[in-house]
């Protein structure tokens, strides 16, 4: 699971709504995956990033050189975009858990795949 995905994932447990974000990340195995740099794509994703959640996740994973927020003229700042590219797309959480901040429900991550299956009781009606 990439950190871009984590930054957009939200718990869909019944009754939780917007309080289901962000999912609290714990990781026991992380891999760095080289991904081809596409500055256009990274620049387009910047407005979608929730920085508090990203920084918290980056901190949990002990990542360094993580920008603290969008800088002026970021669309053309290659250094900034490359750093964001690395954080959002090249850090892959293989094993760990995601926790719903409202309900406490744990979603396990195995082989890089979060298990988001809910029980009947947890499903929104």
């Amino acid at each position, binding site marked *: 699971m990439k950190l871009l995905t984590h930054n957009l994932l939200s718990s869909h447990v019944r009754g939780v709504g917007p309080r289901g974000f962000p999912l609290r990340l714990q990781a026991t195995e992380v891999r760095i995956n080289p991904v081809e740099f596409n500055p256009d794509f990274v620049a387009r994703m910047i407005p979608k990033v929730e920085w508090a959640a990203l920084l918290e996740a980056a901190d949990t994973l002990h990542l360094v050189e993580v920008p603290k927020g969008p800088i002026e003229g970021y669309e053309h700042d290659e250094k900034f975009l490359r750093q964001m590219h690395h954080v959002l797309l090249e850090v892959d959480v293989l094993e760990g858990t995601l926790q719903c901040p409202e309900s406490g429900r744990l979603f396990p991550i195995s082989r*890089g795949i979060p298990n988001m*299956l809910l029980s009947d009781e947890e499903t929104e009606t």
Partner: protein
Amino acid sequence: MAFRGKRPEHGGPPELFYDKNEARKYVRNSRMIDVQTKMAGRALELLYLPEGQPCYLLDIGCGSGLSGDYLSDEGHYWVGIDISPAMLDAALDRDTEGDLLLGDMGQGIPFKPGSFDGCVSISAIQWLCNANKKSDIPAKRLYCFFSSLYSVLVRGARAVLQLYPENSEQLELITTQATKAGFTGGVVVDFPNSAKAKKFYLCLFSGPSTFLPKPLNESNDDDEEVQESEFTRERTSWGHALRCSGNGCYSNAEQPCTAGIMLEAV
């Protein structure tokens, strides 16, 4: 998938049908790969994404990542959701580039509002129409799916969902729930006169009304023209549109009948 016998959805839930064996057969079947890849290409075409722009897409029922690979090849980034662990394992083995989630689309899409620039789905959503547990109510699961899909799409984004509807009632059930969830759009039927090649694409739009794409058609006759799909504010009755072959048929408004079905948001 060409069904020569029972429809897979009648035998049980997708995660049981798509077990290790089925997953293994799936990724080795070159005809299957060819069909799924072609449909992924058509779905992406129908998404009408801005040219040259890498987008962040959702692949519903991504399975072993066949459609996802096509999206990657076109320069897009994607997240796939599937309910079958065996198919997702096959996707891992195939080293797909998108992020994968194990999830049930009928339980909703677990993302923040406005996360995705578009959504594709190949041969998946018909699975929502069959109740596999006593507690399953297809209409509710369909509504949960469509309403959450509407939310996670960027305003004005599209979803193109290729499906194999069992009958017109099922198609109506699906389109009704999509409309309830706020989508406009319609069903594009490619090659409506060919039993083998006929394909249904549910094209949904999460913004104000737009055009319905032109369906593909093989001309048997030199004089035969492909009908233009015109967006009108007229309601087209489901029964009429579904029975229509698309040739020389006229609706009440005396417009040439389309081989598609228009949806209007309620």
